[in-house]
């Protein structure tokens, strides 16, 4: 019981350290996991749905698979990158509000922090300051950073999941449906040829018995 408590405490602290100041990473990981499980569940649902014709299933299952795969890839590549860029814009001070500028000037020495420089990290600077300075910084910085991060990742999610992914999945599903239907036609033709040959051979086979 005590061991479980320790493990649980460790997990809580891990989530606190990793995600409390990184909304963008939360959105990215949540999108990836959500899309992956939804994709698997939906594919199973299509396969088990007796009310959908097989011809449509040959389109819908590849469509769902492609949708899940493209969404997961786009989440990491596009949404992850946009999240990292938006975080960097705010933490370096490239994008600031007058309140943040005022707070930085008040609590740092002249030349200590260069706002807008790529190597600057305002969060690291204020971590070493007094509690009063940290509290004032959190008030003006925290919601601004979350707002920028949330806005950017939401826009990236909309572009990725609602425009890029649907076009990609439809292309793949159309190609896959055509390929599977062609294979079905080939199989039907082979069966037909076999049936025709069987009928022909049966009709020819009687001649041998009539030989005198």
């Amino acid at each position: 019981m005590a061991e479980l408590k320790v493990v649980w405490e460790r997990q809580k602290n891990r989530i606190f350290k990793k995600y409390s100041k990184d909304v963008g990473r939360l959105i990215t990981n949540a999108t990836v996991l959500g899309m992956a499980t939804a994709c698997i569940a939906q594919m199973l649902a299509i396969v088990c749905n007796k009310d959908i014709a097989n011809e449509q299933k040959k389109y819908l299952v590849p469509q769902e698979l492609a949708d899940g795969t493209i969404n997961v890839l786009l989440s990491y590549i596009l949404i992850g990158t946009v999240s990292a860029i938006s975080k960097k814009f705010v933490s370096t001070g490239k994008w600031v509000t007058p309140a943040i500028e005022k707070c930085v000037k008040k609590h740092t020495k002249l030349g200590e922090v260069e706002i807008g420089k790529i190597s600057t990290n305002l969060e690291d600077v204020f971590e070493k300051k007094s509690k009063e300075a940290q509290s004032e910084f959190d008030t003006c910085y925290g919601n601004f950073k979350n707002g920028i991060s949330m806005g950017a990742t939401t826009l990236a999610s909309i572009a990725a999941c609602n425009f890029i992914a649907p076009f990609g999945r439809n292309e793949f599903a159309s190609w896959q449906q055509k390929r599977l239907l062609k294979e079905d036609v080939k199989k039907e033709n082979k069966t037909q040829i076999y049936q025709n040959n069987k009928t022909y051979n049966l009709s020819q086979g009687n001649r041998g018995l009539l030989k005198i």
Partner: protein
Amino acid sequence: MELSFVDRIVSAAPSRVFQNPMINKGIDWIGKNISTPENKLILGATALASQPFIDLNNKKVDKKTRQISCYRTVARIIAGTLTGVLIRRGFINLVKHNSFVGKEFENTFKSFFTPSEAKDYNYAYKQYQNSMGTGLALVTMFITNFAIDAPLAKFLTNYLVSKNLKSIGNKPKEVLDGRT
């Protein structure tokens, strides 16, 4: 030192001070109030406004396939958004009501989700509550995707198909049997 791709983009972009108080208020409001459930709702609403039309205009498949794909997309978006928003919001509220900071809450259920490293309530703690709630929701959704989401999407798809049989162009029995 070589700059990463992200660093290069940020270096090349111009600096900006957000002077407009309305814009700053809006950004602060988003930072304070928008989390994963709201993000899911926004994604769902924009998906309904775009994905069905993309499916309907896919000329590489026949009309019947396009229409059924469109109905399935609508059903999937409604089912996914409904369950996603409700489950995420439910778990975030559960965490918020059981993650109080303070000595008086120690060893009670009111601090079950409180991390030992958290010292007070600030914007980071609120994000932790959102993250923990979202994490629990995602674990639950491994089950609800199969138990609720997929059957609900199937039900909605069949309902939409049965309501629009004339436009699909087949008699009811032939559609349900899968014969053209």
